[in-house]
């Protein structure tokens, strides 16, 4: 049985951010229907947490942290390989270092601007999971560094370097002629 307080908090703190929750879930799992399942699972978890009565200070970051956890459980069940790859993120970060100083030509700003929707979506989808979630939270959900740090549990310094790597990879992909 859901208490009146939990219900009210759900209406005030969860429902307004449903678009954000859905967008994040969609980018993490890659499918509209699965994203609905993930958001539903997250909402059930959120409601349960609100039942506990602890005040939520930053509702959007808090909800997206729950969505992220729900998405990770979903991925663990349905796409175990994606999670395994995410474990190697630190390694990928090291690789990206090489990429930045490597001999490849600098991506062109004007070329980046001409990328179409499908190209942008494919480039984001191709990012390693930890980079993708950081980028989506910043550019699509519009979270601050602090909120991303709270939602992903990573220190702000790590958030910043992941974001920089994610952008370098995207720019490389979109900004150099195929």
């Amino acid at each position, binding site marked *: 049985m859901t208490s009146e307080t939990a219900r009210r908090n759900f209406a005030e703190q*969860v429902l307004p951010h449903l678009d954000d929750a*859905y*967008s994040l879930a969609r980018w993490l799992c890659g499918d509209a229907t699965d994203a609905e399942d993930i*958001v539903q699972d997250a*909402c059930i978890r959120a409601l349960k947490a609100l039942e506990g009565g602890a005040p939520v200070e930053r509702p959007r970051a808090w909800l997206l942290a729950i969505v992220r956890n729900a998405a990770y459980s979903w991925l663990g069940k349905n796409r175990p390989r994606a999670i395994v790859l995410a474990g190697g993120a630190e390694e990928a970060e090291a690789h990206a270092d090489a990429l930045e100083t490597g001999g490849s030509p600098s991506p062109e700003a004007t070329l980046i*601007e001409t990328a179409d929707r499908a190209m942008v979506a494919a480039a984001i989808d191709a990012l390693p999971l930890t980079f993708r979630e950081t980028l989506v939270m910043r550019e699509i959900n519009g979270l601050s*560094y602090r909120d991303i740090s709270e939602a992903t549990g990573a220190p702000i310094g790590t958030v910043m370097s992941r974001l920089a790597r994610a952008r370098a990879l995207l720019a490389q992909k979109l900004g150099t002629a195929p």
Partner: protein
Amino acid sequence: MTRPNVEDRSLLLHAALDGELDAAGVIEVERLLAADPVLAEEYARLKALRETIRAKAPRERAPDSLRLRMMELAEIKQAPRREAKTARWRDPPSWRSFSAAMAATVVATLGLQHLIVASNAPDAALQAIVSAHMRSQISGQPVDVVSTDRHTVKPWLAGKLPVAAEVVDLAEAGFPLAGGRIDIVAGAGVPTLVYKRRDHLISVTELRAESDETALPRNLAVEGYPVVRWSDNERAYVAVSDLSPTELDAFVTAFRHAVARERGGGAGSGSGN
């Protein structure tokens, strides 16, 4: 002061792009960009990437069916029990009336909260404005009059309210007008303008200023939403959004400048100084 290394300088650019720097940091970045064309090129690239992502991979709206299911999940509904039994959800009375019921619930519960906090809360008006914004989002009907044209919104509001609201066009600053609505604050109708940024909405409510002092924008958070309030010598304003506080600040800056231009006819923007 040591020169930041390449890695740090790159992170500094990202932080500048993301609005995460304080004034000193911004000055530092401007200095670096002016001195280093390679870095300036990198910054241009990052900006192009940002614009591209925002334009081509926008935030999506959650399907209404999902929204309804989640409301059902928390048993958020206003219908009395007997009605709930017959009309429930197999055959929803229509999204519109359902969301109206939902809005009523939120108003009722927030109303209760007001009673509790009104005595020591500095500002019940602020609460009312934020609730109106939340309600507009939940109901999916953020505006009473839909128009991107300020020359439509202004007369509409003027026809309903005793005072004329200032309606400015901010499309060039990246905040196109979505329309207007009337909110109820302290028992009276007040004009609220709704602007858009990507999929986010910004509500700006105009109130009669309590004094003719000019108050610079102040950032607050109400119910988890970033809120900015300010006033100039005639009117008080409250802006609320689910945008990040930095983007809301950018909006407020654009709005204030446009209003000052509008009032001063181009010359008298001095009131803000």
